[in-house]
């Protein structure tokens, strides 16, 4: 078990290392010179050279990458003549566009994205598993049909449409909810939930559909298994068969999916964040891409990588906890 964790951690470090190398390669090959943008209009060649030096892009790719790694561990300084910008460890780079260290930008926005992701995930798990079970147990044929229809609709409807409709209905027409703005959980939990409710719903739609479909298929498949027949042959009541014998097997595939979804939403809920004006990581990424703020792009991508790798490891641990057949070696 400990050995497994150590190996897993080692693997994760390797993956992130490779990812950062790849990103740096792309960064270096990028046709646009970030220094020109920073330098602005009326930039003289001398001034440009200064800026390039300050940004650290005048060095070879290896030197740059080395500095990047040093920055991660020990922090680094960006200095141009009189002005020195300090980027404390773990330094993922410095955004000259916004004049802030990338790590700070990410940390500012992570709570927003995490709030969004967790809420949406909880909502879609509850709704998805519930709907999937209702349909999968097929107590009523029409219920199965309705759920199937909704699943299809959930897949098909774009997030922005759902979002706009929700805003229109609840904020404009009925005025039940305020227009979403982000209120930190620590400041006011009720306002936090009230403001995030619509984004959660909008984001949960597709996931709910996916979980409902998976649950439905899972429960039907499990109920057709031999050990369920054994349980029936020994007089176990149907409710007990479903809850005690079938559910665990049926929900196993959801473990991995949920963990990875959770990680993915943190950095990629761009549409939802934009529509509801939530200052999350997704928005940060889009802004950075538009501004060619490459350090931020690298930072967000690495964060995504870290989250996905961590989510995978957690999913594997959960899997082993739920399924006695899985041995972590």
């Amino acid at each position, binding site marked *: 078990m400990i050995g497994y964790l150590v190996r897993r951690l080692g693997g994760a470090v390797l993956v992130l290392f490779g990812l950062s190398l790849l990103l740096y390669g792309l960064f270096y090959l990028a046709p646009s010179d970030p220094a020109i943008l920073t330098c602005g209009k009326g930039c003289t060649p001398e001034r440009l050279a200064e800026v390039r030096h300050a940004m650290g892009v005048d060095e070879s790719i290896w030197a740059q990458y080395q500095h990047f790694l040093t920055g991660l561990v020990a922090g680094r300084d960006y200095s141009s003549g009189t002005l020195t910008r300090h980027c404390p460890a773990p330094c993922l780079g410095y955004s000259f566009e916004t004049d802030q260290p990338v790590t700070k930008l990410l940390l500012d926005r992570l709570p927003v994205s995490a709030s969004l992701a967790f809420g949406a995930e909880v909502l879609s798990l509850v709704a998805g598993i519930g709907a999937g079970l209702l349909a999968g147990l097929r107590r009523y044929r029409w219920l199965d049909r309705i759920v199937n229809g909704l699943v299809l609709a959930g897949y098909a409807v774009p997030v922005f449409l759902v979002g706009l409709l929700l805003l229109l209905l609840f904020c404009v027409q009925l005025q039940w909810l305020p227009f979403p703005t982000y209120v930190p959980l620590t400041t006011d939990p009720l306002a936090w939930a009230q403001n995030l409710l619509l984004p959660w719903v909008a984001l949960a739609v597709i996931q709910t559909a996916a979980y409902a479909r998976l649950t439905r298929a899972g429960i039907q498949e499990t109920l057709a*298994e*031999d*050990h369920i*027949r*054994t*349980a*029936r*042959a*020994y*007089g*176990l*009541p149907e409710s007990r068969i479903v809850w*005690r*014998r079938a559910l*665990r*097997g049926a929900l196993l595939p959801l473990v991995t999916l949920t963990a990875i979804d959770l990680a993915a939403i943190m950095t990629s809920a761009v549409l939802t964040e934009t529509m509801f004006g939530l200052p999350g990581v997704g928005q940060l990424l889009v802004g950075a891409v538009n501004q060619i703020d490459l350090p931020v792009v690298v930072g967000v991508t690495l964060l995504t990588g870290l989250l996905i790798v961590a989510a995978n490891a957690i999913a594997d641990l959960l899997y082993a906890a*739920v*399924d*006695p*057949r899985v041995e972590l*070696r």
Partner: protein
Amino acid sequence: MTDLVVEDLRIRFGETVAVDGLSFELPAGGALGIVGESGSGKSATALALLGLHTAATVEGRITFGADDLTALTERRWRQVRGAEIAMVFQEPLTALSPFHTIGDQIAEVYRLHTGSTRRAARDRAVEVLRQVHIPDPARRAASYPHQFSGGMRQRALIAMALSCRPQLIVADEPTTALDVTVQAQILDLLDEVRETTGTSLLLISHDLGVVAGSTDRVVVMRRGLAVEQGATDAVLVAPQAAYTRELLAAVPRAKPPRTIDGGPLLRLAGVRKHFRQRRRAEPVRAVDDVTLDVRAGETLGIVGESGTGKTTLARLMTGLLSPSAGTITLDGVDITRRRGGSVQMVFQDPMSSLNPRRTIGESIADPLRLSGVRDPRPTVEDLLLRVGLTRALYDRFPHQLSGGMRQRVGIARALAPRPRLIVCDEPVSSLDVTTQAQVLSLLEDLRAEFGLTMVFVSHDLAVLRQIADRVAVLYEGRIVELGDTAEVYDQPQHAYTKELLAAVPVPDPAEARRLRALRRAQVTA
């Protein structure tokens, strides 16, 4: 005690009639066997006895004590199932929940029916596990099914069946997925359980040898009908119905020995195959130092149970695997360097070894195309005829054929490149007895016709006795005994060979009882 009386049982799946007017009686404490091939309706009958049919209409009367089992409420059924009638299923791996410990699963059933305390239920689980001879039952009750071997899982299922002291145990093919020695142990256990608890036993099997020693009455079923029933001794010794005689005739028998004068064709010298395991220092020694000659023109049988390395050995012989050490030569040429299909293989499962999306003809034509034949169709059609199929099957797909027909296709495919040696890996073990007999005689004919040399790998000693000239007994990757078939069967030298031979189910009830007594003597000794 309770008698089971089945009268005019009819089971239909839509338009298909699975059981068509079956009647039989099983007195309390008795043992009844139902024998039939696939599609005879024996399993449908078993499910009806527990009211487990969901898609079928069940008509007729099944009287069990005061109950008519065809007219029970779901509530009453739940009381009967497990407590009065308990079932033992075929697949011990999948028949138990993978998420709960063996002990918990047994205890849950016991608690459900007796309303006992958790503690008492756990004690009962350990008690029945001990009764079915699970070693260290108190500790093993906490194991999950995947931590048990196949035989132990089947014991655990039998323990579950015993837990509520039922009056009837229905065992549907309880030993089909098991090795022959384990099968004998399970059958002996069922017999012992019946003796000690006084429960009745309904034993369902495709194998006459399985019911011969374990039942006092037998019903022979075919296509939903009982073609014959009576005392096991009478039915199996002097069968009245033509079908019963056919079944008995299909049981493999010893053949007169042949003299083989061919020189060695395939030579294995010091062959080993070790598989490295992830993060384990010790590799699995699947095949461990095998030296063996296959003589031209002979049929060499290789017998062993699961895990003895027989499939690995078969694959090594065909060059599908290369040995970790030692050499395998065909006519003096290293097998892995040979081209041109001089060694071919017939696989166990004809369904999964044929591509489901390609026609039969295309599959057989593959090796011919490889060797440059432009229009293989005439040759393939000829091969289809030779293996007892029709030309028209060329354009059919595997799922449109029966199991026996598919295995014939597998044989035709192996013959296509005109091989000198055919390695058959359990070619008849998934087939019904009568189909098995047909395929065996086909292989025999083809061997003579094409002048083939055959290696026949099987777990089934009876089959090998019929087809093999010499037999090699494989145990833990080594050949522990090798000799002419008659010699090995009549005077086995190695302890494992003796154990195997004593475990073979024989359709002669008297002989079956003698072997059981022999096994019991071995156990007590």
